[in-house]
């Protein structure tokens, strides 16, 4: 047994703030959509806008962090062991087999995660945010201080924004469940809170070798 530092401070801060913002945005967003009433339409719209600007700001910080620290490389997709990873979740996990891939600070995502998170970052979030910004800027002031409406159809914008929101909710359900598939049901969540995760020594040795190899290269 060995404790490994996997999630850095900013990463944890970013993750949890983004998680709470997305959850808050979905609560207020689906209220604006008309699904239920919690805050009342007016407050829901107001809160949704505030939270959306916070999320956009946070995402800019996150992009900056990923680029400057090189952490973006974590998301380079690979098909290596992808099939094994899928098979593990479909059957291996029931039989108590070990994870087909190991987690290290240098490679903390398994091939399935790489693929899904990349889709999350490059498709799902951009679709939702861009459609959301267009939604917000649907009415603007012209140079004469008169309010005008942009010419794109609001119906289409709303469609993409709602689609993004629904997919994000589905992602959230699966994502939260998947955190329970670590060494113990709460070990992944604990790692995301503290940054440290316990990893089997033999795996760690194996990883150390890998790291040495990669350093040699």
């Amino acid at each position: 047994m060995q404790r490994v530092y996997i999630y850095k401070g900013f990463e944890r801060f970013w993750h949890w703030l983004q998680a709470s913002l997305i959850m808050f945005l979905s609560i207020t967003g689906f209220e604006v959509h008309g699904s239920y009433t919690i805050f009342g339409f007016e407050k829901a719209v107001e809160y949704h806008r505030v939270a959306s600007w916070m999320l956009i700001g946070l995402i800019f910080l996150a992009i900056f962090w990923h680029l400057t620290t090189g952490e973006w490389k974590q998301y380079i997709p690979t098909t290596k062991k992808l099939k094994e990873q899928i098979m593990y979740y479909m059957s291996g996990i029931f039989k108590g087999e070990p994870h087909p891939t190991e987690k290290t600070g240098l490679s903390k995502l398994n091939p399935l995660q790489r693929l899904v998170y990349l889709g999350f970052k490059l498709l799902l979030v951009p679709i939702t945010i861009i459609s959301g910004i267009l939604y917000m800027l649907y009415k603007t002031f012209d140079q004469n201080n008169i309010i005008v409406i942009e010419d794109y159809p609001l119906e289409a914008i709303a469609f993409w924004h709602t689609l993004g929101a629904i997919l994000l909710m589905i992602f959230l359900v699966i994502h939260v469940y998947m955190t329970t598939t670590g060494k113990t049901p709460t070990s992944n969540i604990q790692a995301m809170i503290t940054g440290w995760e316990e990893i089997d020594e033999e795996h760690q040795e194996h990883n150390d070798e890998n790291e040495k190899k990669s350093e040699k290269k």
Partner: protein
Amino acid sequence: MLRNILLVIVLVILSLVLVNIFHEDDTYNLKLEELRHKYALKHIPSVDHSKLAELQKEFKTPQDVTEACLICHTETHKEIMASSHWNWERVAYVEGRGIASAGKKNVMNNFCIGTSSNQQSCAKCHIGFGMTNDHFDFNNARNVDCMVCHDNSEEYQKGVFMAGYPARTVNLEKVAQSVGSPTKNNCGSCHFNGGGGNNVKHGDLETAQLSCSRDVDVHMGANGMNLECVACHTAQNHKILGKLYSVSPDNSNRATCEQCHTTTPHLNDMINRHSSKVSCQACHIPIYAKVNSTKMAWKWSDAGKLKDGKSYEEDDSLGNHEYLSIKGSFIWKNNVQPDYIWFNGTASQYLLGDTIKSIPVQMNTLNGSYSDRNSKIIPVKIHVGDQIYDKVYKWLIQPKLAGAKEGDSAFWNDFNWDKASIAGMEKSGLPFSGEYGFVETEMYWPINHMVAPKEQSVGCAECHTQHNGRLAKLTGFYLPGRDHNKILDITGIWVFWLTVIGVLGHAAIRISISIYKNKYEKQIINYDDDSTT
């Protein structure tokens, strides 16, 4: 180290952003304060007409008063005689009709139908004397009625069925010496009583506004700004701002909220942005006919029933006529929630002699649509009814309604549609086939008055809701909170819950297997607990 610096920077930025966003903006709306101040100062007239020598005499006829006015106001009659209050028509470009002259002379309505052949009675609301028929001399300055608009003594009153002459009881000297800027009383004497009674036509203009609370009308309320009509309906050379789309077609010379309140009056940007598609009135007049009821429906087809050979009336509990032998049956309502339509400022009216194109006959059509950049959502009163039409010529009949005595073919005396139609259509210069029926009609009245205090304005969720919102009938555009893509919503909900079920199923299998394994291991192998931690 770098991590800590970054974290500090992030937290600082974030807290700044948060403070900025949640900071309550307590800016006071100075624009409104300026308006309040401006209109709190009441106009002091520079002339006291009771001191003028020319007015210190006995006036035999109302025309004598007009002549006395013209001694000083030498050119004013020209302004009056160019106005629509005098001419009862305006020349305007009408979509689909070209340049047309429209006004009370030839526009028909679904209340008392029209003025033609009824001038003797209708002229009660003409600013002239002696309009007995369609041969009125519109060029005779002596017949201009200055007093009906400028009497400040509340003495002046036009007589019933007197072709616009004042009632015989009016003390003309008193009136002439008390003239001044028009008050609510002057404008209201006609505009509150259109259609033959208080609040019959408009729904948002009635005698209660002479002395009402702010809750009824925030502008005219006696405990509020107590504005006169002319405060907003300002005039230059007797050309008065504002008009009504029951008789006016073109988008010009309108009185607007924006002329005082600007296009961006709210401190909240989100609400300001609504004004590209939503009129001020749509949110700020949540209900109309707040005090007395207004007529919502008028069925002429029921008119003419007699009891023992005599006409009769039936009233409801509020004292509104439900039935009149001379006019038919009515539906009255108070505290009415308006209907909402798209409107771009142009309209067209049904003119005498127009062929009926659709049923219900549109007495006036307010043009506009969502896709039209100039259109906004406005509140309207829709007055429905049925009225007499010619089955052969397919046009509405102008019947002669008012008459001096029995036997002069007026419907209100003789209760005979044939005679009334023949007499009315003859005066109108149109043929009558002899075959008549009753056709359904609709008329649109924009609601502009009875603005509520801001606390009572229409809330967001009254329109942005999936269930029975105020704009439920206004389709053809995407309204957030009301509209959604059904396929996406239903599919989304299904996929979401299937995912939840799938995840729970996966978890259930994992849990049951691990329980089974635990038991098995404990029973058979009985290992040290170390391995299971």
